[in-house]
């Protein structure tokens, strides 16, 4: 006897769209909620209005995948309940609080698929709050969705495949790039050769991006230790250290990021168990290879469950939907499921190699001076965190938040949580795992006080 299925999918990126498709194909009508007005998530983010650029201009080698995904969502329109521009700001058991415009209402669900995606993972550096400094993802959105470069002369800094992709996209779009500064040593890139058999396209493209940037005369540096972003009310340059020597480049914008971090607030509010992922050096919601969370009825897929990229997100979205169907007693193609899981496993193996090629800069946090802003929202400094560890014996992140206000601001620790963990761990002699993780609190994003409460829809 099957209970009525009313799955809620949060996030209309690659994972959410494929999950919705798999459920719709099985005759289920899910609710698909997304904050943006158009689907695609971040990597396949759509323009608000058409313009002169082609999908190739926007998505490069992934253009076919992007347009296919967007088309899938359009085709699903009358088979799902798609709620764009909707923020799920709270979730509990079988009810989600969803705000659209100035109104909020509860939406009941029988099952939940969280496909909430990711944002850039950053560490602070002197000058990082200045106008003209964006994350790598932010720089990419500026170009892709808005057709704008983040400046006349941008520096791209950090690590990971996104660094080279964004810089290359800027170059192709005609922007001037002052430098590409990779915090990972050049030698680490040799790990990528081991990735060739697993994801040859990605590895070769990465090498090509770097080569074309260099051929265009962009300076690409490795083993970079960023020192500071210069400027007053806006960026004027960047200073870094390389092989012991300090170097400088003039620029008016910086795009930087070290990796991605999963958006996990709803998983936390929904009661999912979290585990510390050594590979990504971050807490994430626990799930099996099918995307089951451990809490009956809750599934996780895509970068919001674990960072693995857009291809994995599409596979994981479909796999999670199939797991939901399996668990609800529907017949599912076992061979197809096995194929999905094998492909996902291969991508995860590749991600491990990527992490070796672009290792997280573990010594960055310790090099930060006390006066560097750690929490952008509350303007709490690195030194204040160190003092709390030293003077008040703080060893745990939520305690740190209570006593120093780190993570109490509007972004709820999205931008500073990672750094706070690194600095607190270092200052208290613990590990990033031991200091714990910031507990999510509703509303996961700000809501106006006069928001109108509506009753449940049918």
């Amino acid at each position, binding site marked *: 006897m099957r209970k009525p299925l009313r799955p809620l999918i949060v996030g209309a990126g690659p994972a959410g769209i494929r999950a919705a498709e798999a459920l719709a194909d099985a005759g289920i009508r899910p609710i698909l909620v997304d904050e943006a007005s158009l689907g695609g998530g971040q990597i396949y983010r759509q323009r608000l209005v058409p313009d002169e650029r082609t999908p190739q201009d926007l998505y490069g080698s992934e253009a076919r995948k992007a347009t296919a995904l967007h088309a899938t969502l359009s085709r699903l329109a009358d088979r799902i309940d798609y709620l764009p521009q909707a923020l799920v700001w709270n979730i*509990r058991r079988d009810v989600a609080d969803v705000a659209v415009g100035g109104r*909020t209402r509860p939406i009941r669900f029988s099952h939940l698929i969280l496909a909430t995606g990711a944002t850039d993972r950053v560490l602070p550096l002197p000058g990082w709050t200045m106008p003209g400094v964006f994350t790598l993802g932010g720089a990419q959105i500026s170009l892709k969705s808005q057709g704008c470069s983040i400046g006349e002369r941008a520096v791209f800094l950090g690590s990971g495949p996104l660094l080279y992709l964004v810089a290359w996209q800027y170059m192709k779009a005609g922007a001037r790039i002052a430098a590409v500064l990779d915090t990972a040593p050049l030698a680490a890139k040799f790990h990528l050769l081991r990735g060739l058999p697993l994801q040859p396209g990605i590895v070769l493209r990465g090498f090509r991006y770097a080569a074309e940037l260099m051929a265009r005369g962009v300076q690409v540096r490795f083993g970079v230790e960023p020192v500071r972003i210069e400027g007053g009310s806006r960026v004027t340059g960047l200073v870094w250290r390389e092989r012991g020597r300090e170097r400088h480049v003039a620029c008016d914008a910086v795009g930087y990021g070290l990796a991605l971090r999963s958006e996990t607030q709803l998983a936390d509010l929904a009661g999912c168990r979290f585990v510390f992922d050594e590979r990504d050096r971050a807490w994430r919601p626990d799930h099996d290879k099918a995307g089951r969370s451990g809490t009956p009825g809750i599934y996780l897929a895509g970068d919001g469950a674990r960072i693995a990229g857009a291809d994995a997100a599409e596979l994981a979205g479909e796999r999670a939907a199939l797991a939901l169907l399996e668990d609800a007693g529907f017949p599912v193609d076992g061979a197809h499921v096995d194929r999905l899981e094998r492909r996902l496993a291969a991508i995860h193996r590749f991600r491990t190699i990527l992490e070796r090629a672009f290792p997280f800069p573990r010594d960055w946090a310790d090099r930060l001076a006390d006066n560097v802003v750690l929490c952008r929202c509350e303007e709490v400094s690195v030194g204040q965190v160190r003092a709390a560890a030293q003077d008040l014996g703080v060893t*745990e992140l939520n305690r740190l938040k*209570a*006593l120093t206000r780190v993570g109490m601001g*509007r972004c709820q620790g999205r931008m500073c949580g990672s750094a706070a963990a690194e600095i607190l761990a270092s200052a208290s002699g613990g590990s990033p795992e031991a200091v714990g993780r910031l507990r999510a609190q*509703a*509303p996961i994003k700000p809501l*106006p*006080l006069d928001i109108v409460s509506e009753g449940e829809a049918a």
Partner: protein
Amino acid sequence: MSPLLAKDVAIIGGGLVGSSAALALRRMGMSVVLLDKGFCGAQASGVNYGGVRRQGRPPEQIPLSQRAHTIWPRLKEIIGIDGEFLRSGHLKLARTEADMASLEAYAARVAALGLGLELMGHNTLRERFPWIADDVVGASLCPGDGHANPRLVSAAFAHAARKAGAQVLEHTPVTHVEKTADHFRLLAGAETEIKARFVINSAGAWAGTFAERFGEPVPLSRIYPSMIVTEPLAPVMSVNIGAEGGGIYARQVERGNCIVGGVRGEPLDDPDFSRPTGSGAIAIMNRAAALFPPLRNACAIRFWSGTEGEMADRNPVIGFSRTTPGLLHAFGFSGAGFQIAPGVGEVLAELVRDGDSSTPLQAFSIDRFARTNQGSGAGVVTEPPKRETSA
């Protein structure tokens, strides 16, 4: 090798009551171990509204409240930080004529107790506090009251107690306590054994178990007052706001955020923890937007709730056990413990040292429940009146 601690006093519960008692006892030269199942001050003491007010308390609480009143301005000297205490005044609003009559009656009842209440009608209210909506009938102001930051204050008392030589054991729940011929024996955490002459049960919402352990069950239930906080705003609220009849309390901190409470949350699967309901949070947000028009466009950025012990008659239990010499109780503050807690700490220390206190405590005797025949067995009895008042 299990540590055996021998102390004059063992305090179960490191919230504001337990921590301030620990500090006061150390100042008297007694040896103290302060135990908490988590971080000190992480429960109700750390997540309450932060109101530091005497106004609105029943007359029997006023002497204790007045005693605490002298401590708040001296926090810097006592615990090293001022805890963001602001003597903003406490303004209790009357939304109806009946509310106003209640405020007037209360002011008359406590006239001799030194609160300095000022009653005002609609016109004065509009003149002095134009940021409050026009449909409020009147108010009662207690100029000497104010608010502070509970997260900082509670933790700081525990920290000060530690610096003064108290042994503070966090993440060390007390698993067993018994009275032998001449002392108490406690087991806590993995392997800690404590021998103490006195035990203070300041275990907040969890105190009922310990009271029952010594044969004096009480009608203690759990409530989950919840709060919303806004983004930082330009200064609007010049005073700590309450309302006759409950339903809303609000204050603005120096950094500009406004904190608003007045609804209750719900327990999580683990009933030691709670969270606001979505609908409750929206309700209090809307109430704030309506009552404080300049705030209506502000955004709420966070909700939280805490686990608080409430007594059936909404007065705490403070004083000696009626069954066991050397055992003292101090719990059940029913959402109104923050302001008086530092005073309670001093009083507990006096009780330990002298067997008595200069502050009258009869109204808080644990005796009162045995007399009225309530509270057999599990210690959870009648539903208290549904009225959300602030700490």
